[in-house]
């Protein structure tokens, strides 16, 4: 067994393992900074400034939070089931990170391009429900159990609608492999959000419910259930649940980006007329760098001035990395890396916008009551998603078998699906909700 033979055997696994290590190592940091971004966005929408103390403009806040959580006392309730209490956050985090393994960040950054990639992600997200239910159970407290059961019921309800919306996009793509789906969007020339907009809307709503975000966050609402299934968890165990929730957000945003928003393709990827859009990434990074340098002298403390200037320099370096493949001579290694680097940039930009929409919705809408939530999931979203799948199938058949122009077919089915959505809303409004409705079916 010489070194060559060992290397041959191990070689197909090296790159995926490297990507996996990078993702697992960077994910807590990224999740921490998404928390900071959320607090800043919340502050912006509430006309205040948010965390400003730790580091310039609060940029070191996640590090302070992480240190605090790591140093907290690890409290386990006396009558809790210790093995399950220990294992439940692990299940949540593992399933959330596992789902990231089948998602392509660029044409070359993917851990595993499974043939059944999309179904794998859906299945692993379904496994994440276990972590929540077992966590609530193991805490041996009423609030936790109720919160866990409510959360699991909500997740199961919206999982079906999300799956149907995904199936709608899969019909258009014709393949389950995530790389193939983006490839198909590139071939068709249009992102699937323009071909099946209602599917995107259904997936948006269902994914907000899947990640327990407001306005669907009744299971973890502080005013109703303390913190739901996370009540008895403190310190690093709570941080694991939190990490799992934000990783789920990233996963769901990545799925939506891959399926509907074109993955790593830039806008108008197949049209050579729009090639000037290739210069947008470095220009945007230079703009951010310029803003940092502009604000650096205004900072009150010397250390903060230096930090701001350092952040500006970082943005300039990013702009240089993004611009390098564009100015390199065609045919060199650097120019060949353009799809990889720019693809990663566009993908991350789209994921960031999707997560920004999540945060926007969180701070704008009031919370749904639990029975309203379930009613919405089962009586509006599920029938609409089934009609959506049927509509897309009909449109595809019409355009492939009868030869009608594709725009006409998809416009027709979109209009029909919108009409059925309006009908569902009208039917839903005629039923009384709340306490008045309980007399007919319940035994209250």
């Amino acid at each position, binding site marked *: 067994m010489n070194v060559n033979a060992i290397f041959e055997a191990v070689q197909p696994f090296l790159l995926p393992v490297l990507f996996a290590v990078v993702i697992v190592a960077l994910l807590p940091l990224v999740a921490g900074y998404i928390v900071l971004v959320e607090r800043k966005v919340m502050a912006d929408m509430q006309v205040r400034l948010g965390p400003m103390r730790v580091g310039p403009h609060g940029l070191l806040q996640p590090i302070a939070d992480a240190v605090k959580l790591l140093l907290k006392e690890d409290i386990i309730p006396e009558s809790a089931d210790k093995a399950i209490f220990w294992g439940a956050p692990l299940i949540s985090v593992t399933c959330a990170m596992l789902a990231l393994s089948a998602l392509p960040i660029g044409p070359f950054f993917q851990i595993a391009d499974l043939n059944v990639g999309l179904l*794998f992600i859906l299945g692993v997200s*379904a496994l994440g429900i*276990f972590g929540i*239910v*077992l966590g609530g159970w193991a805490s041996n407290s009423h609030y936790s*159990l109720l919160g866990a059961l409510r959360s699991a019921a909500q997740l199961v309800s919206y999982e079906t609608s999300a799956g149907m919306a995904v199936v709608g996009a899969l019909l258009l793509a014709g393949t389950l492999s995530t790389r193939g789906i983006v490839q198909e969007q590139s071939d068709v020339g249009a992102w699937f959000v323009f071909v099946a907009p209602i599917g995107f809307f259904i997936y948006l709503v269902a994914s907000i419910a899947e990640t327990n975000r407001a306005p669907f966050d009744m299971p973890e609402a502080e005013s109703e259930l303390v913190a739901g299934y996370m009540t008895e968890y403190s310190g690093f165990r709570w941080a694991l649940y939190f990490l799992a929730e934000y990783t789920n957000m990233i996963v769901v945003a990545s799925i939506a980006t891959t399926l509907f928003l074109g993955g790593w393709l830039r806008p108008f990827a197949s049209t050579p007329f729009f090639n000037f859009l290739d210069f947008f990434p470095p220009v945007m990074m230079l703009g951010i760098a310029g803003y940092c340098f502009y604000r650096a002298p205004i900072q009150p403390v010397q250390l903060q001035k230096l930090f701001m200037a350092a952040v500006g320099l970082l943005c300039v370096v990013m702009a240089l990395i993004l611009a390098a493949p564009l100015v390199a001579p065609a045919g060199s290694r650097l120019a060949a890396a353009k799809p990889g680097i720019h693809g990663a940039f566009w993908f991350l930009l789209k994921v960031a916008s999707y997560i920004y929409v999540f945060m926007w919705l969180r701070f704008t809408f009031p919370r749904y009551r639990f029975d309203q939530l379930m009613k919405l999931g089962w009586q509006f979203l599920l029938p609409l998603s089934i009609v959506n799948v049927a509509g897309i199938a009909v449109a595809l058949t019409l355009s492939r078998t009868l030869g009608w122009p594709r725009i006409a077919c998809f416009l027709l089915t979109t209009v029909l699906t919108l009409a059925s959505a309006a009908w569902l809303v009208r039917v839903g409004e005629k039923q009384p909700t709340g306490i008045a409705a309980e007399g007919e079916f319940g035994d209250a």
Partner: protein
Amino acid sequence: MLDSVVFYIFAALAVISGILVVTRRNVVHSAIFLATALLSTAGIFLSLHAEFLFIVQIIVYTGGITVLYVFVIMLVNLDVALHQVQFNRQWLVALLLSIVLGAQVAAALALSRGSLYSMPVAPATQLEPNTEQVAWSLFHTYMLPFEVASVLLLVAMIGAVVMSKKRV
């Protein structure tokens, strides 16, 4: 070589999880070990190049049925049950019968001529896409059982809802 190692690991996991499902006192622990057993079976399916079944096993069995079991366990759990006798009075007879059954199957396998047929080894680049094959077969040859299965699921859904309502 890697194939057989993966199979033996998953097989060992499945058997150990199965034994733990049947012998745990706490029902929630049994449910968790059931999930582990089902995931090991999914791994065995994957090692047999049955990708679609691997996924369906995870989504339907582990992600759906096991969560359903855990829900029901939480609804019917009694602390009293933890201290009661867990096994029947006939457990010794049952164990002996199972061992005899297993020994019979093992003897039949060992004495037959074909039990050492190995699995066909296909190079990875020539494997047909399994999902497409399954879909083609399911929607062409086995269309009627497919429709009957959907009716079965509808009936089961209605039955479960009716069973679980408070006042029928």
